[in-house]
């Protein structure tokens, strides 16, 4: 019996130690299973630095096939696939077949690092047409070392406001940073949202945001414009994502006196928080972050959300109609704010290869500015651009989401659309012009 007691004690000691170890292990990882393989692909591109043209050119697309933003991926995937199909029907860049290899990162930085390496090293991707803010920011140095152009439709982070692009000197790549984005940054559309809030008379604000880089960045972008133009923040509460309840955080937030409150969280957590807000009858004007203009949000939260608004990147690029026609024939995924930028990222990168006459990463990097900035023949598709380049003309790609006029830091400006929850759906109710928002962004700071 003594032996049994000792064994029991040892067992309990082990279980306690293992449990504590398990907690440490679990708390240090986001997911054990985030490594879904995605579409894979056999790569097989080969690249050229000006010699013979390859048979196949690969673009790698890290995607949110799973994870907090997977609901946005179908539209982004369909747009990229439609662009690839369109490009191939037009003869392909350098006459090669363009192939898209998509791999899942689940918006996990560690998984993104692995996927980016796989795309470049295993799939021979000439360029990468994906990656989120939450992945780019912590992996910044790694991505620079990768020395592959990243033209992504996803990131809004203010971190990228002064990082990325060719610094206005396309011929000199020594000062370049390898990230470009075809979606307007948070500075632009959060700035538009802040401008709209001030115009509507909401001068004091409460903020509830998730504790990840993307959510913080959105709020920081909003507040930089809001506070610089007379607005005040009365309370800010940061919360962990995936909680079963946000009532304590809401209780704390609404103890403060303010006119409106800003919610910046991924959709599932936001639905929980907004349902708690509705149940608690806290009231006041909700302002939602850009990813929350989803029907599911209204369906789950209910009519209390009427009047809530979301500022999103506009969909009013010069090439939007052309994009929409091709996109709708490619499938039935709904268009979200990252769908047209996905189309633009593939189009402008393919045009850069055509312009460079090479799949050499530096050559592509050097051509992204010249094919997008003003001065050449305006084209809205790869087919038009390929023809113009063949005629010896310089080109100026006019995108679906924005004019894709890359700034020195690889950013784009565009209109901001205000979508308001009305009678069970989000309706576009107002628009803030790019020029209005540009007034609030210092020259050279975006």
């Amino acid at each position: 019996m003594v032996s049994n007691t000792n064994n029991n004690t040892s067992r309990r000691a082990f279980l306690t130690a293992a449990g504590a170890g398990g907690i440490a292990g679990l708390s240090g990882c986001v997911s054990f299973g985030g490594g879904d393989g995605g579409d894979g692909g056999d790569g097989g591109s080969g690249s050229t630095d000006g010699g013979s043209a390859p048979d196949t050119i690969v673009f790698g697309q890290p995607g949110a096939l799973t994870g907090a933003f997977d609901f946005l991926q179908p539209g982004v995937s369909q747009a990229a696939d439609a662009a690839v199909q369109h490009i191939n029907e037009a003869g392909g860049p350098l006459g090669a077949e363009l192939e898209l290899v998509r791999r899942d990162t689940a918006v996990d930085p560690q998984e993104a690092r692995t996927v980016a390496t796989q795309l470049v090293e295993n799939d021979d991707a000439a360029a990468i047409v994906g990656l989120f803010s939450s992945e780019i920011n912590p992996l910044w140095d790694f991505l620079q070392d990768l020395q592959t152009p990243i033209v992504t439709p996803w990131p809004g982070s203010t971190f990228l406001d002064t990082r990325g692009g060719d610094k206005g000197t396309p011929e000199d790549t020594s000062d370049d940073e390898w990230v470009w984005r075809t979606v307007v940054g948070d500075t632009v559309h959060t700035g538009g949202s802040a401008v709209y809030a001030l115009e509507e008379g909401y001068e004091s604000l409460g903020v509830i945001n998730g504790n990840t880089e993307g959510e913080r960045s959105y709020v920081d972008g909003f507040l930089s414009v809001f506070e610089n133009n007379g607005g005040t923040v009365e309370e800010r509460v940061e919360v962990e994502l995936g909680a079963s309840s946000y009532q304590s955080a809401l209780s704390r937030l609404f103890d403060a006196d303010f006119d409106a409150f800003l919610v910046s969280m991924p959709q599932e957590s936001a639905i929980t928080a907004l349902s708690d807000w509705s149940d608690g009858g806290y009231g006041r004007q909700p302002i939602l972050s850009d990813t929350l203009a989803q029907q599911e949000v209204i369906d789950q939260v209910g009519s209390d959300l009427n009047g809530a608004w979301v500022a999103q990147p506009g969909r009013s690029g010069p090439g939007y109609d052309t994009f929409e026609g091709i996109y709708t024939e490619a499938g039935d995924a709904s268009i979200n704010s990252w769908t047209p930028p996905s189309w633009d990222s593939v189009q402008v990168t393919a045009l850069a290869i055509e312009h460079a006459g090479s799949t050499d990463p530096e050559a592509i990097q050097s051509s992204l500015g010249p094919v997008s900035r003003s001065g050449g023949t305006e084209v809205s598709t790869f087919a038009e651009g390929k023809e113009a380049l063949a005629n010896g003309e310089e080109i100026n790609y006019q995108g679906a989401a924005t004019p894709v006029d890359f700034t020195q830091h690889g950013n784009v400006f565009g209109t901001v659309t205000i979508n308001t929850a009305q009678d069970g759906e989000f309706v576009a109710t107002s628009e803030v012009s790019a020029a209005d928002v540009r007034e609030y962004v210092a020259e050279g700071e975006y």
Partner: protein
Amino acid sequence: MGLLQEIIFGLVTGSYIAIAAIGFTLIYGIVNMINFAYGEYLTLGAFIGLVAATMIPVPLPIAALVAMVGGGVVSIVLARGFFTPINDTGPVPMLLTSIGLGIALRNAIRLVGGRGARYFETETATFRFDAIPDVSLGPVDLLGGFFVTSEQLIVIGAAVAVFVAIHGLLTRTDVGIAMRAMGDDESLARVRGIDTQLIRDSVWVLAGVLAGLAGVLMAIQTNVSADTGFSHILQILSAAILGGAGSPYGAILGAYVIGLVLAVSTAFLPSSMTGLSSAVAFVILVAVLLVKPSGIAGKEVREA
């Protein structure tokens, strides 16, 4: 709002965790293993409840019962398939098996159930008690007006019902008394004629039933997705360890300590630290284990 409101929020959070933690700690104490796949049992319970509520469809209380029955069946099937064959290999192989099973189940659920979150359709009523006077102690209001929702009442009520049922089971039934005997000394229990395999099976079923209920309650408050249970396993595990290894009563106590600390720390931490409320709960867990390695109720329950 006052401390009273925060305590209510903490009790609700603690109730979710407590129901699941009882099942977790029963396995912990009687089957001699840490079941890291237990979060997926919650997820499966939530999905079973959702299917019952939306596809059959049945009223939500019936769907919860279906989830409990389904959870029990799933639990015993998985135990028979993966854990019973290695019962005698010791806690390490069983622990590793449960980690692998959890990963496999989570990804299988993601494949079958899809990527997006799904939701129970519920109507929530809110009851307000604004006439409660403020009782200030420094900057803290101890009382003050508060509200409680029908969902919160259901969660707390379900937890209380589970506590009563578990207490009755462990103290008034032969199976429950046999479970306690096995928890103290399995060899002695076997010598006294207890069918230990039957008791293990009973524990698996009971843990599955509780996981099914906890999964549905969590899903009603949040959503049903492949990560519904996994996102809470850390709190469940912590509650079980904090309360005392293998003690259902300790797990209940540990769950409410964690729930209350989460709520109160969110309310009173400095603004820049509100995202760290979970960390505060785990600091308390570590502190308790340093002072009392058997957990808050470990020793007392073993003597009972």
